[in-house]
């Protein structure tokens, strides 16, 4: 079977996709070796800034890979054009499946609102932008040394989930002064008061300007806040924070729509393949087998899975939606939803029962107890990791006169306190770029409020 045969069949798959109503930007396909596939998966982008933490993920992935846990078929990046990387070891059948899958992703990323908004702001060329960030950081290393650049990246990448996606990538600094207050009422007391001091008239003449507090409201976008308000941040350090932040805006929709997106792509690769009568019979059978491996909910030989395969859940949900409500409704849902609303609105009781979903509780000892199949609770556990980009709700709440940065953890929203030891290390990272003390208001394991800083003694953190 010729290596390039899949390329020759690409136009026919694309033709099928257009006829089925998929709307997507052109996609560049490239076959790359397995090792490079793995790096793309680890870094999240084909070329990304260097940092030791990626090395840790890389080696973990390599070990898992060597132990034979997983195989990557493709990675796709939205854009205009989009970029799809296929593993060079894929068979023809696998590549046909993958090509159809990629077109499903391309349709999704062009039409889903979260992706659309993110691309409108970050631009259509995230792959190229990330490469340029990587170059920018390599140059910073040359100029300022690895140690200093690493300190900045330690802090910025630790906060990569802490952006505010309800605001735009391009943000103005806070207004410097508070909006002038409404004129005080002309009551007898104020008139009398104003007349008491002779120079009060002169003082009243100009509009009263009051410096606005920084931040004027709790600020969730910690990357932006530190980039703009850290007392002694140098220009190049600020640029690194903003580079990391820009990539976070790109990653957010990927994270927030994973179930929908993988489900959508799987739905389309299954459907397009069924319609691809030009495929050799043998390749078709292979491809169907590959499809069932990918969307398999439970590992071979097992009866239950402690976890859900997002490909399978998404795929099943889209099939259900198309069957009950039709393709137009499905496309509307694809356009409007993210995983949180998708699961809440469209994972219904019948489907959950059909998929045999259940909620379980795992104790530290390793024993696992099946709880129930209550739908609302299932929804919450599935989408729990999706809220707030998967991070605790931490915001910058106040900057003291001496420059101390106060962060606040909203434990009421998150339902529990913060992991104290990790938080201390993160505060340490932040302190090195904020260059003033940094404290975090949170609660201990008994729910009592306390202030945490990088130097808090372990005993005090209960």
């Amino acid at each position: 079977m010729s290596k390039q045969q899949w390329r020759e069949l690409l136009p026919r798959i694309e033709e099928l996709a257009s006829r089925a109503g998929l709307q997507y930007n052109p996609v560049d396909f490239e076959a790359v070796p397995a090792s490079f596939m793995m790096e793309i998966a680890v870094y999240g982008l084909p070329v990304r800034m260097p940092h030791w933490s990626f090395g840790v993920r890389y080696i973990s992935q390599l070990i898992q890979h060597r132990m034979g846990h997983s195989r990557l078929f493709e990675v796709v990046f939205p854009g205009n054009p989009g970029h799809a990387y296929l593993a060079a070891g894929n068979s023809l059948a696998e590549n046909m499946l993958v090509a159809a899958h990629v077109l499903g992703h391309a349709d999704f990323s062009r039409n889903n609102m979260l992706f659309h908004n993110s691309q409108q702001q970050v631009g259509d060329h995230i792959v190229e932008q990330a490469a340029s960030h990587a170059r920018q950081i390599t140059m910073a290393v040359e100029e300022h040394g690895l140690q200093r650049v690493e300190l900045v990246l330690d802090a910025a990448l630790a906060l990569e989930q802490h952006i505010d996606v309800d605001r735009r990538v391009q943000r103005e600094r806070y207004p410097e002064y508070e909006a002038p207050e409404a004129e005080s009422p002309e009551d007898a007391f104020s008139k009398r008061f104003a007349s008491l001091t002779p120079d009060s008239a002169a003082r009243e003449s100009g509009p009263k300007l009051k410096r606005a507090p920084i931040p004027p409201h709790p600020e969730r976008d910690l990357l932006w806040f530190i980039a703009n308000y850290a007392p002694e941040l140098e220009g190049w350090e600020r640029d690194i924070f903003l580079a990391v932040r820009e990539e976070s805006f790109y990653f957010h929709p990927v994270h927030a729509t994973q179930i929908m997106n993988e489900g959508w792509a799987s739905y389309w690769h299954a459907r397009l393949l069924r319609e691809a009568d030009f495929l050799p019979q043998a390749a078709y059978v292979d491809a169907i087998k590959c499809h069932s491996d990918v969307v398999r909910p439970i590992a071979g030989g097992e009866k239950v899975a402690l976890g859900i395969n997002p490909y399978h859940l998404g795929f099943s949900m889209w099939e259900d939606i198309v069957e009950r409500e039709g393709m137009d409704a499905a496309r509307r849902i694809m356009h409007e939803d993210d995983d949180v609303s998708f699961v809440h609105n469209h994972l219904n009781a019948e489907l959950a029962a059909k998929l045999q979903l259940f909620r379980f509780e795992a104790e530290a000892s390793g024993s696992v107890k099946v709880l129930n199949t209550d739908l609302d609770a299932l929804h919450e556990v599935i989408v729990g990791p999706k809220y707030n980009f998967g991070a605790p709700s931490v915001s910058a709440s106040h900057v003291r006169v001496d420059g101390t940065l106060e962060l606040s953890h909203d434990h009421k929203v998150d339902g529990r306190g913060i992991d104290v030891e990790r938080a201390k290390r993160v505060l340490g990272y932040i302190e090195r770029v904020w260059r003033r003390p940094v404290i975090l208001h949170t609660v201990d394991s008994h729910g009592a409020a306390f202030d945490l800083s990088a130097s808090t003694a372990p005993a005090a953190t209960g």
Partner: protein
Amino acid sequence: MSKDESTSSRTTVAGWYDLFSRGARDWLRHNDKVREAVRAHLPEAIAGGDVLSGGTKTIRVPVRMLEHYHFRLRTPEEQQGVGQGAAKPGDQLGQPGAAPASGKGGGGRNDGGFEFLLEFKVDDIVDWLWEEMKLPNLRARAGRAEEADWTREGWDRRGARSRLDRRRSMRESIKRREVQPADAPRFTDDDLRFRQLTKREQPATQAVVFFLMDVSASMSDRDRQLAKSFFFWAVQGLRRQYRYLDTVFVAHTTEAWEFNEEEFFKVSGSGGTVTSSGLKKVREIMSARFDPSRYNVYLFYASDGDNASSDRADAEAALDDIAALANYTGYLEISTTSQSRLNSECGTLFKALADGGKPAASFAISRFEDIWDAVRHFFQHQAAGEST
């Protein structure tokens, strides 16, 4: 798109990404950071007895992967998750002791967390330690032992082809052509310069260390392990100083035997302790193989301190005999309690030696953490003794 499976195929495709691996680069940077971290806590990191198994050139230190920290919620006692398959409410799945299933829904954030062994060059570690502990470099005894060695000295116009100094010859050629007409030959025989060798007397840089260990019934496995760790670092310290370092391992109970290094630490004896038997064995080996006029001699003795009191006079005589010839003698007392340290039979023996103005020192240890104090004590003491 990915799937679980157990085989993978390798294909080579020429692309820029074949040229280097960013993952490997960042992993190496991670390892450098681990090295820095280990270096910052070096004595603790390598105090354990299990680090000495990687041969003598390198040691393997078990380290954890570094975690890049993020804000995270406190892990609840019980983690909830959603599973799929044939299971009814109330069913118990999985066995206690198995890894708990994580309730993560695909954040994909796995910052590692397994242990791996990192290799360190013993030479590097010793350099760091000496720097860290501000230990002096030992000085070989001057003026005693002399050793003839060939050294390079000067140049000549004649010599063996193998000793032709090309750079020097070229310089001569350039010098000559500067003052000669342009068509002068590039090289003449007169341009050639050969390195000359002469024989020179040099201070001896040979040394021998005797490790003498009490292996009588009272020395437990742990005591021996402590002695081994100390001996290991003592050898490394001496190797910094001497080009050729011989080691001799002697174990004794009421009798004494010489062993090779490997067997030495496995030996266990039974019965009583007669220190003089070990010391006499050392003296015997010294006379036979290590002439004190050509060797710097070191003796380290590790014992729990017990010795038969009837042996006191014999042991004293044997020790005095050795101390007169040795650069230094050290006594390491391994005790399980911190009381009555160095008041033992052997402790008294070495104290008498030190009081008599001989280069000798004693130190008592009871835990692995004490080893560094012991190393520091012996090396600082010895350097101080030599400089006076």
